[in-house]
């Protein structure tokens, strides 16, 4: 294949993705990455050398046939490319936007230098090509053929939680003709895609479209319904569900445990992002949920959630006509940040400041109980810890204070325990994660499966979907043998 004539594909420069101008975009919640148009997608796809033994797919938690869909793009067979994606992934338009590709398929791309912490710039922009093909399918109303299995249509499966894991199971099962009901505790489906990821990374029309494709497959959604509260897990089984999948997510915020953390305007990232993303507080008072925005905002943490919170906070500062002043405070250095490189880059372009090697020690406030200052210690890096990253060590006596009239704590989440607390027969580990058989994703309860953040792991959308696939296969196998 030589679609572009004589140029050696290995020498071609990666096609940069078009983005909304950083000065324009940072005062709104519109999408930042604009994606590839057809010409750009063709050009980027032509860089793929179609390896005999492609390593990229091994980096994909759901095993998309990457080589094949990229080849189909080079042939302008976009419909086929879309169907290739959908064979393994029901939500290419979502994953093409939120997958940390530089740690997954792009990292295992042959163009990435061996031993790198994340993908080289030369690696094929697989995620942007996925997004291109996914959006093509969406814009052209393409749908995958439903392979209803007559033997399965009499079975009912309940899915608890409508986030990435639950959505993926719903898709896998519904397309086989299984009667699927998704229970969601919040008023809208999508889980972390709705309450956690801001619209400037994942526009809500994309999310709604992908959710809508589930209802087209016949999946039923019951929002405002908490299993463990309105109904118990055993009650679901007793009602005649043949299996239950738990995609409960990691919904509990962790705090630093330092003094002054309960002062007003110290938010967990979950609270800040839920107010902004789920409740549209950035459109207050048109939407009725308020959110406070400080003059000097400090976001604590180095992951994607910290980037989302910082970028959202900075946007609202601008929307409200305030001078942008949002700083990410992280105990290690940039290289150790678990956030996607693209998100770090975007945050910086938009004006988010970074303060590395800093450990938050104490918040202090005024007499009305609002936070005003944050005292920190400088850190140095020590030996690598269990995560493989060098451990930050606070330097005694290096105290310094920063202005901070609002803080967002984005240092990680714990398993949602609403259901597990009231279901002792569901075995959990010391982190309150649900224990599963790694092959089948079955829990200690018969016919009850689990996947996504509730069973622990990396916490990415695509990894949750990978687990969901495993669970779906096991559920289908069980139902066929029933």
């Amino acid at each position, binding site marked *: 294949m030589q679609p572009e004539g004589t140029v050696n594909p290995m020498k071609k420069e990666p096609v940069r993705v078009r983005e909304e101008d950083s000065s324009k975009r940072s005062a709104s919640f519109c999408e930042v990455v604009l994606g590839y148009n057809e010409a750009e997608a063709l050009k980027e796809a032509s860089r793929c050398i179609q390896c005999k033994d492609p390593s990229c797919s091994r980096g994909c938690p759901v095993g998309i046939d990457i080589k094949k869909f990229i080849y189909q793009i080079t042939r302008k067979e976009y419909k086929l490319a879309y169907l290739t994606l959908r064979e393994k992934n029901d939500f290419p338009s979502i994953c093409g936007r939120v997958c940390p590709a530089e740690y997954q398929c792009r990292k295992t791309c042959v163009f990435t230098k061996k031993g790198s912490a994340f993908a080289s710039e030369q690696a094929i922009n697989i995620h942007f090509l996925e997004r291109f093909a996914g959006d093509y399918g969406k814009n052209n109303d393409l749908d995958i053929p439903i392979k209803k299995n007559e033997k399965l249509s009499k079975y009912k499966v309940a899915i608890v939680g409508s986030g990435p894991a639950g959505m993926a199971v719903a898709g896998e099962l519904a397309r086989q003709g299984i009667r699927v009901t998704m229970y969601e505790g919040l008023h809208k489906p999508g889980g972390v895609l709705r309450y956690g990821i801001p619209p400037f990374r994942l526009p809500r029309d994309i999310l709604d479209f992908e959710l809508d494709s589930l209802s087209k497959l016949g999946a039923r959604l019951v929002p405002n319904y908490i299993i463990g*509260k309105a109904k118990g897990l055993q009650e679901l089984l007793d009602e005649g569900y043949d299996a239950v999948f738990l995609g409960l997510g990691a919904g509990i915020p962790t705090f630093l445990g330092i003094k002054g953390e309960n002062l007003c305007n110290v938010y967990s990232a979950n609270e800040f992002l839920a107010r902004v993303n789920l409740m549209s507080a950035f459109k207050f008072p048109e939407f009725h949920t308020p959110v406070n925005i400080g003059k000097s905002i400090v976001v604590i943490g180095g992951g994607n959630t910290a980037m989302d919170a910082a970028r959202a906070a900075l946007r609202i500062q601008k929307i409200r006509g305030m001078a942008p002043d949002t700083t990410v405070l992280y105990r290690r250095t940039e290289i150790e940040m678990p956030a996607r490189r693209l998100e770090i880059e975007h945050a910086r372009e938009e004006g988010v400041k970074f303060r590395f090697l800093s450990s938050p020690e104490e918040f202090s406030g005024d007499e009305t109980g609002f936070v005003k200052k944050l005292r920190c210690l400088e850190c140095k890096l020590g030996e690598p810890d269990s995560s493989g990253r060098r451990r930050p060590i606070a330097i005694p006596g290096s105290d310094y204070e920063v202005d901070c009239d609002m803080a967002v704590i984005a240092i990680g989440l714990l398993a949602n325990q609403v259901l597990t607390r009231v279901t002792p027969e569901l075995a959990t580990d010391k982190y309150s994660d649900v224990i599963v058989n790694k092959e089948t994703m079955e829990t200690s309860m018969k016919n009850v499966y689990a996947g996504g953040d509730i069973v622990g792991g990396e916490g990415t959308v695509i990894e949750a979907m990978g687990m969901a696939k495993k669970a779906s296969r096991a559920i289908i196998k069980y139902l066929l043998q029933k």
Partner: protein
Amino acid sequence: MKILKRRALADSSATRITSIEVLSPDIARKARPGQFIALMVSDKGERIPLTIVDTNKDTGSITLIFQELGFTTQLLGQMKEGDSLYSLVGPLGHATDIRNYGQVILVGGGVGIAEIYPVARALKASGNHITTILGARTKSLLILEDELKAISDNLLVATDDGSYGRKAFTTDILDDELQKQKYGLVYSVGPIPMMKRSAAVTAKYGVKTIVSLNAIMVDATGMCGCCRVTIGGKTLFSCVDGPEFDAQQVDWDELVKRNRIYEDKEKHICNLKAL
């Protein structure tokens, strides 16, 4: 989520307290005293928590009682029979630990009276001797007096202006009662200053005292931590660890401050969208 019935319990120029019955068979079936729901009036609305005051398994409905204090409760106050809420989820939080404590005092202040009612009834059914102390600013704002009289062995009323019952605070009466004899439990719900004073009064007598806190919530299912309160030096979430806590352990000053986080925003939206 349809509003089946609506009834004004108190309606003065400054204060309106309304009772609504909302269709929600699963919540009605599961709810136990002390639990609450979170609701949204419209798709643009806030999520607010309200105590489940009563359930009716025949009609599959739950009773909610609210005072129009902020913007969302004002919107809720405008809803009519036949209207539907946009969102309703529950039952949330832990239920009250109902057992025989012997002699029990329940203290209800203002709309907090609605919250002690289901607990008082359940405690009565468990064989407790019930003393109820109700407080209101003035007689016309006193709610559920007849309902509570029916299940109380002793019912006492305090009003701020002396228009009914004794001109006193509920906590003055509480103090008097605790002096008279030994009680197994005090259960107090009302404005924060009242609950804080209750805690101070009962501390003198060493009586176990439970309060139900009204912290600000978003999801109300343990996900956001907005409703965190300090209990005995530990941070807990009102929504999933509460809403009831040991009154002596609550950091009241912190709760007062945290409940004022959005005071200016609330004023702004109320002025802007004057209903």
